């Protein structure tokens, strides 16, 4: 099952290592990981997406609390949270036709064209994994030059 684990911790060196090591020990692959500042000064939030058994996730969450700097941890299913990722897609667009079509698709997905050159466009999209992959698949025929995606950020509903 897919879980989003949110861990709040003091922003000190080495905490990220301790957090990821717990997944490493149990050989659980991390699908995405985001570390960012929060509204409180000196406190960071780690958002970790994993696909693992519920009881293993429960154990890891308790072990996360063992880390001295960790303050609060929660594990959530997708239905309990609002979450977003952001992606940048650099796509081939030499002729007017493709440019218009890409612009149209971009608007459909509420994405933005953020950079334009003679040969390519850079599209920015924020959304869940499905939306991002949806736009990516539709842009594929034009020729994707580069595709990058951030990790997930989430807020409890």
């Amino acid at each position: 099952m897919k879980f989003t684990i949110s861990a709040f911790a003091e922003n000190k060196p080495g905490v990220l290592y301790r957090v990821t090591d717990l997944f490493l020990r149990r050989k659980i692959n991390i699908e995405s990981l985001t570390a960012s500042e929060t509204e409180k000064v000196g406190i960071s939030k780690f958002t970790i997406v994993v696909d693992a058994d519920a009881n293993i996730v429960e154990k890891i969450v308790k072990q996360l609390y063992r880390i001295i700097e960790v303050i609060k941890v929660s594990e959530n299913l997708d239905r309990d949270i609002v979450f977003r990722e952001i992606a940048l897609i650099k796509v081939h667009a030499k002729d007017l036709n493709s440019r218009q079509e890409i612009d149209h698709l971009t608007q459909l997905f509420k994405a933005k064209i953020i950079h334009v050159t003679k040969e390519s466009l850079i599209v920015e999209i924020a959304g869940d994994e499905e939306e991002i992959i949806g736009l990516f698949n539709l842009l594929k025929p034009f020729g994707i030059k580069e595709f990058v995606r951030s990790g997930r950020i989430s807020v409890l509903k």
Partner: protein
Amino acid sequence: MIRNNYPPQGGFFSFWRYLKKMFHVTSFYLLIFTHMITGSHAVIKSLIEEGIKVIFGYPGGQIIPIYDALYDYKEEINHVLVRHEQGAVHAAEGYARATGRVGVCFATSGPGATNLVTGIADAMIDSVPVLCITGQVGSNLLGSDAFQEVDMIGITTPITKWNYQITDAAEIPQIIAKAIYIARTGRPGPVVIDIARNAQISNLDFSYKKCSFIESYQPNYSPNLRQIKSAAELINKAKRPLVLSGHGVIISQAQNELLTLIEKASLPTAFTLLGLSTFPSRHPLNMGMLGMHGNYGPNILTNKADVILAIGMRFDDRVTGRLANYAKQARIIHIDIDPAELNKNVRADIPLVADAKIALKALIPLIEKKSRSNWLTEFNKYQKIEKERVIHKEIHPKGNYITMAEVINLLSEKTSGKAVIVADVGQHQMITARYYQSEKTNNFITSGGLGTMGYALPAAIGAQIGTPKNQVIAIIGDGSFQMNIQELATIIQEKIPLKIIILKNNYLGMVRQWQELFYKKRYSFTDLYSPDFVALAKSYTLKAKKIIKRSQLNSCLSDFLKSKRPYLLEINVKNKHNVFPMIPLGASVDEIRLE
């Protein structure tokens, strides 16, 4: 006459002296008011502030400044020079286990630091409060593959409760205070402080304040009282209750509370390896040891109990055997200070995050007085079977060869179960755990979770230094002994009156036993050449004696125990001998074998 007039009084001389004095006084006050000292002095002063009396260590390039500062504090703090850094960290562990205080060790950067790793992992899994201070290259060289640079923080992160690298001298007092607080509170554990050379040699304005609170780390000592009430109800209703007591009870010094509770409700109690010396072996409710080589009764009856009260133990796989068949019929109450231990291996019906002592205190008034004699007789029945089929044969063997069990049994009698026993790892460890009848709280020290061969000699050094009035006896196999044999020199140099018994069978006995039982007697690399340990001891000027015949055993053991000096006994015991009972790997607790 001239002498009496010197130094001349009054006039010019007096003025000159006044000036000189004022100069000293002002520079002195400058020092006092600003408290400027080097980082290295701050390290030692911080440790003194924390009441640290002993450091086990080994100097080297990047920790020379700290050792230089240590030279000024010889009166306040004792440094024990070991012969290998692994010896330092195990000695710190032994010291901590015997005294309940934080054990401290020093090592230099690079190889010195990495030599600590095994001991740090050992302290982590056995919850031992140890502070390791390592030297590190200067911060301008960090990450540059400098001489003797190793990423000690990276290496020790998975095996420490906390670690920190100091690159600024000003951080030293507060980080040491925090490290000591973390090491000794909650579930104790090892901490590492890696100090870059520039922080050791630069100055700071020193002031010390002990740490008593960390916002992100607040161990929960007090139990949830609703849970305590449900636990008490469960125990009161139980027909066949069983208490499993672990290291946590010793760490929180809850032995009296445990005794009060179990005597009130007649609760049979069994112990994990590290819980063994919680209260006297001969107490009628002490049912012995749990687990792979534990006693027959408590293992079998684990699967017959209706309520299990587990305190300060973590249901290690050596205790539970096959988890799928472990105590499925029982309702389980699990008390532990570390929330991550609850529901980790065995699901608890009533999980209780709390300090063992506080939880037991809360539980006692709610527990009803009961006698439960039928249930207790069941334990006696299995005890009798084990005595007839295993114990008697072991302590009164028929053959010519001495068995390990008869040595330990005799030692137990001769010391009235009151010596501090430090056992290494292997067959001799299990035999010592089984046959040394401890009568004193916390007098059995061994490496439990990690099973570190080479543990006992240095750990016994630490235990003896920590509790100089105790008779400390290290029981070591010939394999384990050769893993940290170098510490014999430490004993002589420090004049430590340690007693060492080598149980020599010229095999890696425990592995050999598994090969015999589970690997078709394919004895792959387990026969072991061992030197003449008596001759070796002599070269260290260590008193030593070899025992090869049973007739020597009694008198030699008496002389050994009477000696005020360090003493090594090499006892040649029966080889190719197995430890029973045994729960084979992957079997359940009630499938324990007697032969």
